[in-house]
């Protein structure tokens, strides 16, 4: 019985670790308080706000500079510029830009979402 318990505990621990690894990034702080919570990535009008009492929040998904998180059992999106994450930041120390865009003899067209 004891042996079985140990095996079950080991498997559970392994599963837990693997789950944590899948959501390695966690939101550990908010730069803006209260932190706006959005229904969709991209911004707009926040559907809720949080004072970040129950941080950290595991990052479930990343899209368009927004993170999907679960807050009080509901899915929300938070702005990546408004939060701090657990991963050490990879601040750029090299050049700011790869290069100044060269002058062109053309007019740039609008992107696919220009008239959305």
């Amino acid at each position, binding site marked *: 019985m004891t042996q079985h318990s140990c095996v079950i505990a080991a498997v559970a621990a392994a599963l837990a670790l693997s789950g944590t690894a899948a959501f390695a990034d966690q939101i550990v702080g908010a730069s803006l308080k209260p932190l706006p919570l959005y229904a969709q990535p991209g911004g707009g009008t926040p559907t809720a706000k949080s004072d970040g009492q129950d941080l950290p929040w595991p990052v479930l998904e990343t899209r368009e*500079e927004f993170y999907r998180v679960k807050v009080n059992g509901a899915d929300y999106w938070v702005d990546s510029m408004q939060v701090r994450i657990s991963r050490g930041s990879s601040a750029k120390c090299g050049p*700011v830009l790869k290069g100044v865009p060269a002058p062109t003899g053309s007019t*740039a067209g609008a992107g696919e979402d220009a008239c959305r």
Partner: protein
Amino acid sequence: MGYYWLLHDNTPPPAGLAQRFNPRFVPDSSKSLGNVRFYFRSLIVAAIVAITMLWATPRLTPSSDLLTYAVARLQARLVGGHYDIARRDDTTVVLIDDASLDPQKGAWPVPYRTHARWLRNIGLIHKPRAIFLDITFGRERDDPTLPELVSSMCELRDAGVPVFLAALPGEDGKLQLRRGLDNPAGEAPCFTMVDVRYTPSKVDRLIWSYPLWSADGGARSAALAMAQEAAGIAISRTDDAMALTWGVNNLDLRRFTPECRLARGGYAELLPSHVRSLLGDAEADMPICPYTRTLTLSELRAQDADQARLADMLSGRYVMIGAALSGFNDTVLSPVHDVIPGVFMHAMALDNLLTYQDRYKRAVEWEIWPPNILWLLGIPVIMAAHFLHWLATWLTQRLRGRHTWARKWLVSPTQWRFASGPAAAPPAPLQALGSADDLGSRLRLLRRAASDRASCGWLARAAAEKLAVALALALRKAAAIVLSTLVVMYIVLLAQEFVHVGTLPIVDLAVMALAAQWLGWTNHVTRFLGGAPKAAPAADSPSEQQKANSPTPRKE
């Protein structure tokens, strides 16, 4: 033997040749040496010649302006190296680059909602002193998120962060934005429209000046509006644009791109790039990176954010947001930094206003009757150029009268005597050739001279001597031009500390004043109008020369 003998040491020449080898000390009557009246006459002439050239040369030969602008570019690097760095870090440029757009599916223009998000995040999180958005929202497009942009700016207004929006004039000359992007009625404005037009130089397309008020409608430029409203600087209205001083010292900044270099500025920047390469500067060919501190929008994301850096660069700073996107030509040409995104021009202009305040450098120009301030600075520059030329001549003559080495070396190359050459009598075939009358006999004598070794040797030596003299003359003139230019540039630099005038008009006049001296026009005109200077001092008389040439007894 093809050797030449130049008297450059105290070794006496071989016996019998001493008379031939001594350099002649013929006074140069074209110099205004020792003649004070001639000097002052020529000074007045120099001023008239320089101003006439200033007016006439661009009209007669438009390309002559290129010389002025080339010198002005060097001067800009010199001035930029001495530009006060104290307010540099007050301004930060935030660039929307291609990498910043990638998470937005690379689309441009981005929805108004995204602009709203960027503004809100920078303004509410980092609390800058003011934000300027260098994106003109003039054209209408189908995007229902426009109200979010207005509300974000109103939020910033309520948070005490003023927003300045780039705008262009409409048909009535007043600044305007697209329909729907208006300040809400009945409440304090949420943003201020600012003019973002500029006029590059017609000659070299560089940005030498920055308009503060538009000539047509009196609209304020971005830098001026921020300086007045956000920095609280009182700037009285004038019709003159601001002469932009481009700062250089960016040694402690991050490199802007791999293709630019960090620099301190000053005299080292005046050296041509290939000379600096020879001196071991591997990046000599690169332009200098921009002066203002810079971030990209992508650096504000959580995974890239360095909070301490963001706080240092954004909190309490004047933030200018601009685009550096492929395919968009929002770039300007700086005389110091080459091609850079246009937002840096506004940042540099704001830095100038923060640094100089109401005593910013005026972009005045030479007109038929120029502004008094140009006279005030221009006349000393002409005097300096003239005095330098006179001083060099006077010093040369004085030294030649006093020192043996100067008598040997400070003579015009045209007066050099070589050990053998034209001074020696040409061989007989060449003499006969010179006295031949008809073409047939000349051809016959020429064939004879060509087959004569002595004649060929004499001709080769004569050609080599002429070449050496021509080379020395060219070097001497080049050295005179470079040295006098450097000194005058330094005088302009010093003068700029006290007079609020831009570099360009002064350099323009200085180049003309120097050119008048280099070409000898000043003395020619002075002699034409008022006669030649008086005879040179006694040191140039033959008896004095003889005395000067004799060895001086040395007291031990």
